[in-house]
């Protein structure tokens, strides 16, 4: 199967639903070593995802045009680090070869390009207790999957969930939590968990 606008809108709306529903949980885990507002920020990002989906349904943006718009808006929500980080990732999903329909290989290139763009603004790696703990394994899993969108997103989702869970065992090396060093072991990273919701939502939205 290929992904068209109607698929993307369903997938993205499912992502937004997960972020809305887990607003309190995300803030709660962030409050252990951060300032406890990651849920507030992700809720704002979910609002932007929904409003841009509504817009997309009324215009003829290509996939790249949509993600470029989404990324710009997320970067500018006033959301601390999460705004620029997620915004840059989503902007990076916009490929130069703009298409209205995307196949598995295009999706893989989108995801990898998003990660590359994100890596121009952060040096965080897997194990640093950041969103990268979920994002990098998810994109690696997608990339090494066969060219089948359903399998690819299924594998990415599983890897993102695993990665978010694994972040519990890591010592924080970025952001406010960094100062707490070893004490951060045992709590998952709020950014890794929110990132896993993105991949959960994309997969569930595809099935719906």
């Amino acid at each position, binding site marked *: 199967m290929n992904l068209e606008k109607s698929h993307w809108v369903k997938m993205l709306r499912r992502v937004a639903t997960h972020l809305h529903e887990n607003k309190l949980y995300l*803030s*709660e885990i962030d*409050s252990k*070593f951060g*300032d*406890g*507002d990651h*849920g*507030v*920020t992700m809720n704002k990002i979910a609002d932007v995802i929904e409003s841009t989906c509504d817009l997309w349904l009324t215009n003829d943006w290509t996939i790249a045009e949509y993600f470029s718009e989404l990324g*710009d808006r997320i*970067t*500018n*929500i*006033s*959301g*601390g*680090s*999460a*705004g*620029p*980080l997620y*915004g*840059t990732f989503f902007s990076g999903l916009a490929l130069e070869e703009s298409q209205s329909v995307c196949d598995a290989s295009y999706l893989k290139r989108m995801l990898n390009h998003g990660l590359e763009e994100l890596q121009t*603004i*952060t040096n965080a790696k897997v194990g640093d207790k950041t969103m990268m703990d979920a994002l990098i394994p998810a994109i690696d899993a997608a990339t090494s999957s066969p060219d089948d969108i359903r399998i690819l997103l299924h594998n990415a989702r599983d890897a993102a969930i695993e990665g978010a869970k694994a972040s519990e065992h890591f010592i924080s090396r*970025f*952001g*406010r*939590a*960094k*100062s*707490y060093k070893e004490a951060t072991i045992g709590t998952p990273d709020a950014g890794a968990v929110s990132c896993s919701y993105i991949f959960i939502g994309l997969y569930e939205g595809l099935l719906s």
Partner: protein
Amino acid sequence: MRMKKFINDPANLTKEVLEGLALANSDLIELHPNNIVVNKKLKDADRVTIVTLGGAGHEPALSGFVGEGMLDVSVVGDIFAAPGPQACVEAIKLADKGKGVLFIVLNHAGDMLTGNLTMKEVKKLGLNVRKVVTQEDVSNAPRSNADDRRGLVGCVAVYKIAAAAAKEGKSLEEVAAIAQRFADNMATLAVAVRGATHPSTGSPIAEMGEDDMEIGMGQHGEGGGGRQLLKTAKETAAIMANGLVKDLDLKKGEKILLFINGTGATTLMEQLIIYRDTVAYLKNIGIEVVANNVGELLTVQEQAGFQMFMARMDDEMLAYWNAPCYTPYYKK
């Protein structure tokens, strides 16, 4: 700890605090869309101008220092959260009066991401902008690893120094160099005895034991190590002053600027006692306090505690510090 604050809809906190600030100081500042606070006299500025960015919830910082002799524009995000780069680019364009813009960024993850994205964009636009990062929290990294040092109350002093240099008609390169030299010679330690609540969520930030204090608390109660039993003002002042003197490698005969900055719920009585004890400690080792500020410049809601700030001063820096300024929360 349950939140107990006089607020309305938590989603509107930033908008409402900035509207209040602008209303209360309508002779000095005006509020532009996208949470941009502007010095009313900016339009007449024929000099390097000063722009900063940061979250709300730290009042009077940062926007309370917009006005003649300190900040020309402050770009506010949300509570404890950085604004996006688009608003910063807009602010820099607004501030640029043909002599260039000094862009002061505190070293916090979100502020730095936005600061870097903003610099990328203004370079593309060909604007004349120099960035100075304040990173003076000695608690979480050694001086050799300054990129890991957070920006605390020191930014307020840097605004003052940079603006005074700009007012003298110095070039952007000169203003940036002066601000950087000052920033390289400053150090802060924060101590907390009670945490705050996040005003948007009501959740506690950094809960402390009843009998504890933590030295190295950072800006938002991020923590930084030294949790210990609460000590007297004199003992606490000595521990903190000693940490700063060591970090700055201050020698007998040197002069400093000293701030005791209450973080929200520590009384002025306590701050003044701490100031007294710090001055006495410094006098004993031959260091002279030539300028000071005791009171709240940069707060963290109702966090009880204070930040002790020191900066090495010479005659040039002292002249900049003593230059006149007129802003809502700092006047000279």
